[in-house]
């Protein structure tokens, strides 16, 4: 078994979820999703597959859009983006996300930045991965105070996309579109079901003894620690340095 850091577990989980995606869009402030997308690209290239296109929003170097910030949304509408990431100040058991605030709108007692493109992209991008590293009942609530974007829509609403999974620092959930709720897929190493249940403010489906999020194959871990770390250093230098330090500390502990 390989020793892997918690960030690496999440990055590999993202890369698995992205299997089959050809164009992945990532927000500028999302190093773990970006690393997952870069790992997906590295895996596909190493296996001789088609190269994945990654668009990092707001980046000059990792973004080929030439029609301004509207182009991402036009691309999404036409099905030219396969996967995207969203998060939330609150995420509930129905897959609704809240990026606006806590309390009665508009004079919310806690105000977050706002919905960004979520109220649109959640409907149109086939694979939306919800990512929030902090896993607490403050974030994972029974019902969000404000719906920036709903997890599901009625059958008469035009909807080509939506959430497929929720990845946190403790676990990976799959979203069941028909039931409109989450099922626990696996728990990351070092965590357990009781802890996950206590940290989650909504109910979710699960096996009696859910599996552990699997460690990556040595081949994949090598790609991550070599090529992907190098790719990351250009765009997310602080995160790349932090990850390097975590890996170094881990190998010291295990030696």
């Amino acid at each position, binding site marked *: 078994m390989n020793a892997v850091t918690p960030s690496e577990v999440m990055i590999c989980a993202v890369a698995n979820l992205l299997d089959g995606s050809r164009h992945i869009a990532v927000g500028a402030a999302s190093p773990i999703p970006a690393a997952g997308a870069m790992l997906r690209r590295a895996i596909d290239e190493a296996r001789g597959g088609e190269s994945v296109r990654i668009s990092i929003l707001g980046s000059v170097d990792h973004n080929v859009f030439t029609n*301004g910030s509207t182009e991402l949304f036009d691309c999404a509408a036409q099905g030219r983006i396969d996967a995207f990431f969203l998060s939330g100040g609150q995420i509930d058991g129905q897959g609704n996300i809240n990026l606006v605030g806590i309390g009665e709108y508009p004079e919310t007692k806690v105000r977050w930045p706002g919905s960004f493109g979520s109220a649109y992209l959640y409907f149109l991008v086939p694979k939306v991965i919800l990512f929030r590293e902090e896993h607490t009942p403050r974030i994972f609530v029974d019902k969000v105070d404000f719906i920036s974007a709903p997890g599901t829509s009625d059958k008469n609403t035009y909807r080509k996309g939506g959430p497929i999974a929720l990845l946190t620092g403790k676990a990976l959930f799959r979203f069941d579109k028909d039931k409109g709720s989450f099922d626990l897929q696996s728990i990351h190493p070092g965590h357990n079901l009781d802890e996950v249940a206590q940290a989650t403010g909504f109910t979710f489906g699960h096996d009696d003894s859910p599996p552990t999020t699997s460690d990556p194959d040595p081949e994949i871990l090598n790609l991550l620690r070599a090529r992907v770390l190098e790719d990351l250093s250009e765009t997310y230098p602080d995160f790349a340095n932090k990850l390097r330090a975590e890996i170094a500390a881990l190998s010291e502990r295990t030696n």
Partner: protein
Amino acid sequence: MAARLSNGCKLALPVDYAGVSMAMIQPILDSGVRDLDLVCVPTGGLQADILIGAGRVRSLETSAMTLGEAGGAPCFIRAMKSGALKMRDSTCPAIHAGLMAAQKDLPFLPIRGLIGTDVLRHRADWKIIQNPMVEAEDKIVIVPPIAPDFSLFHAPLADKDGNVWIGRRKELAAMAYAAKRTIVTVEKIVDGNLFDDENLSAGIIPSLYIDAVAEAEFGARPYGLWAEYGKQTEVLMEYAAQAKTEDGFAAYLSEKYGAEVLT
């Protein structure tokens, strides 16, 4: 240029990375203009936060307000809690659709998504209609035009005829097409005509849409200007720390701009 702005006008500002005319904050504060209706295309940051904190803004239409790595926009957050700001929460493509409706002088444009969101629920000016082109049920949201009285941004180059080069930052062109008037600061005003270089032409907003241009070197700072210079995150962090309290912001405004918070 700031003297052209009038009280109660609708002013459009670009997203942080697209070319923010930070250089115009001083003249806007000095002009005493107030009750601005800001539209952020499609999100707002430091520039909008300073204007809000300084008491110059009546309403805000945006899909988000953030200082990026430096965290939340402190004056915006305070104004939301106190109810001082009329907020029109939006989503990025709805801002773009509104500008495009204005560009084409249409009464509305349809936009996908949004149905079932609280963003839509709180926007009395947005409607759900049946797609008139099909028999089957197909609800779609329509949004009215966003026609700013002024669009304001910063770009690398202009010429003496008032043509402005924006490269691939086409949201700036969308802002200029939609607005009644457009005011621009640039790094450099060059002699000759930008259209003389055919390679530049696809990235030019012609003077047809431009009302005033002024030179302001490093006019986007602390924000960056694409390939020209980078963002000064540490300056944003300092602002976030100082503007955390109302008094801290008032001191910042006085020290940096010699301006007062209007009440």
